[in-house]
């Protein structure tokens, strides 16, 4: 085992899949010589050359649309959208095309491809370098949506995403790139899509989270443990398909559930999780299904005081846990 940063794990996963399968290509803005603005693809252009590591023009719809065509043509494209905030011009290609291609052709065609994008706030990125965009895509059948929280999962899930026969959106919280380290084993391993993980066992309150919030949930669990509140943390890892069983098993055990997400609260991904729990675990609930999520403003403000106000943090989560535990 070696201790690696989150971004090192992403880069290793990409590189090893490119070595394993010559149909895997990488394309996006600045992914070539520069190695990406976050250096996720650093070194790949030198190793694999112009054909397999392609600097694209600033045209996100083209990045995704040509990836769809290249996938039909026998390649396995891994597209990088420089910031999740800039994925919106590709919304039509993702939602109307990639997601629907297999269904609309009755299995005649498919688009095996991955779209990676750094997301999330807390990095002084303001409105347009901080967004969480997962809810737009978890809503769409035909897309898989993955949000890893550890270097181990980032590498293992990225491998599974590249090998998957359908389009996968792979969101990486940019604040974790260099701040999160973890053990990554040598050699090949994968983490299956669609499987959540209980990262902290407990008995009184279930906290469901993903990405950076999965770390903050663990910190919050430690804080309230000193107050004798036992928290079970579920890291979803894949948002769609949702591992409903792991979620429901935990909630049926604890009877209380707090869902945490960084995105705006209203209509966010956690709303659907809350609805499923309400529909399928109602008899087990000892309190309302609650959420801690970003405020409903159009973006994360730049000023540090305002940004801190916006961001969900361990203390805000701990407060949510305390209220629910006391219910």
């Amino acid at each position, binding site marked *: 085992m070696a201790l690696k940063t989150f971004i090192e794990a992403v880069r290793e996963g990409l590189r090893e899949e490119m070595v394993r399968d010559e149909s895997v*290509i990488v394309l996006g803005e600045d992914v070539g010589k520069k190695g990406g603005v976050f250096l996720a693809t650093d070194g790949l252009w030198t190793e694999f050359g112009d*054909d*397999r590591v392609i600097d*694209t*023009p600033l*045209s996100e*719809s*083209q990045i*995704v*649309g*040509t*990836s*769809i*065509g*290249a*996938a*039909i*043509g*026998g*390649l396995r*494209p891994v597209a990088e959208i420089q910031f999740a905030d800039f994925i919106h*011009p590709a919304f*039509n*290609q993702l939602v*109307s*095309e990639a997601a*629907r*291609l*297999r*269904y*609309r*052709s*009755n*299995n*005649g*065609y*498919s688009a095996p491809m991955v779209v990676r994008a750094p997301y999330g706030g807390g990095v002084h990125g303001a409105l347009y370098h901080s967004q969480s965009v997962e809810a737009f895509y978890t809503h769409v*059948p*035909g897309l*898989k949506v993955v949000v890893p929280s550890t270097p181990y999962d980032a590498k293992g899930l990225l491998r599974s995403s590249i090998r998957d*026969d*359908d389009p996968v959106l792979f969101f990486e919280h940019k604040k974790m790139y260099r701040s999160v380290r973890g053990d990554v084993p040598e050699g090949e391993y994968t983490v299956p899509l669609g499987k959540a993980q209980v990262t902290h066992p407990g008995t009184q309150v279930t906290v469901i989270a993903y990405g950076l919030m999965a770390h903050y949930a663990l910190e919050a669990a430690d804080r309230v443990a000193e107050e004798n509140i036992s928290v079970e943390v579920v890291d979803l890892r894949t948002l769609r*398909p*949702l591992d*409903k069983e792991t979620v429901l098993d935990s909630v049926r055990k604890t009877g209380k559930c707090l869902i945490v997400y960084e995105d705006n609260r209203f209509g966010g991904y956690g709303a659907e999780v809350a609805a*499923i729990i309400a*529909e399928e675990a109602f008899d087990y609930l000892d309190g309302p299904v609650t959420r801690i999520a970003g405020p409903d403003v159009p973006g994360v403000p730049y000023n540090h005081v305002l940004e801190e106000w916006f961001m969900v943090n361990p203390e805000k989560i701990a407060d949510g846990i305390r209220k629910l535990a006391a219910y």
Partner: protein
Amino acid sequence: MAVTHTDPATKPSKAQPKATPKKSAAGSALGADLGLSSDDLLEMYRLVALSRAVDERMWVLNRAGRIPFVISGQGHEGAQVGITWALEKGKDWIAPFYRSIATCLTFGMSPRDIMTAQYATASDPSSGGRQMPGHYGSHEHNLVSVSSPVATQLLHAVGLALAAKIRKTGQVALTVMGEGSSNQGDVHEGLNFAAIHKLPFIFVVENNGYAISVPLARQVAGSSVAHRAAGYDIPGVTVDGTDVLACYAAARDAVGRARAGDGPSLIEAKVTRLTAHSSDDQQTKYRSEEELAAEKANDPVPKFRAQLADAGILTDEAEERIKASIVADVDDATDYAESQPDPQPSTAMKWVFAEDWPSEAPPPWGLGE
């Protein structure tokens, strides 16, 4: 090469097109300078006429209440057959659009394939009855499945051309759409990328002068899509889309460039739209009777028929034989589609993904079993 800058869609000519003489100025038989044999020309004519006959049957079935919707390719058939003929069937790729009936028939789909799409049967090879008619596609024939948002397919063809270049397959990828669709941003993004990387890609615009009701002058600045090619430093030609052989010649040049590694080409084929936009449109609301009558003079079907008859290639006997085969094919396709079962709700959750997808919350009313 018979590339012209005439504009039959917007400047209807009163004169009937002149019949082509039996020998060209060089004294060779019709099509010989293009490497086309008499058999090739007869087959091209059969495809043009078959496409028209299938299309006309669709309207009859719609008016008879048998099928709910028609979107038509009438007036586009000559360009579609001529251009598609230049590609290699079973090797090259086409990302078509909703008027591409003749394109699909030329690239290997059958009248049954087209007609089952109209009826949305379980056996419809384009979508198994999931898409509206007009959304043709067939993996077996390298025809990419198409959606309804226009121009998105251009990027798919560019991606196919990228894959062909990287994998060194020698394939060419062509996409086609109307001039109205050509105003979408995806067109710019795709042409720019294809030109940068000199991809084996061909962009065909079937310009019929109307985006539903909006005329060319209100959708295309300067009224030429072909002129936009200059901005990408690629060849852009305008061709009379009712002249089958001119369209073939333009496409053959573009295919040659693509295969030689010389990059993309743009072909703007000026065609006519002989029907309303769709069965839900009334084009007399925005087009005059005079204009519609003039359009008929540019109908590619009688034009190509006359050209081949004058050249002595389409004899009375050959025409009767082709006509009889078309009638039989269209009747067969209609009868076949009428007899085919609907897709069942038990299949409706299939193929969201490669693996089974019961969804997190399947419908409480089940799958009709």
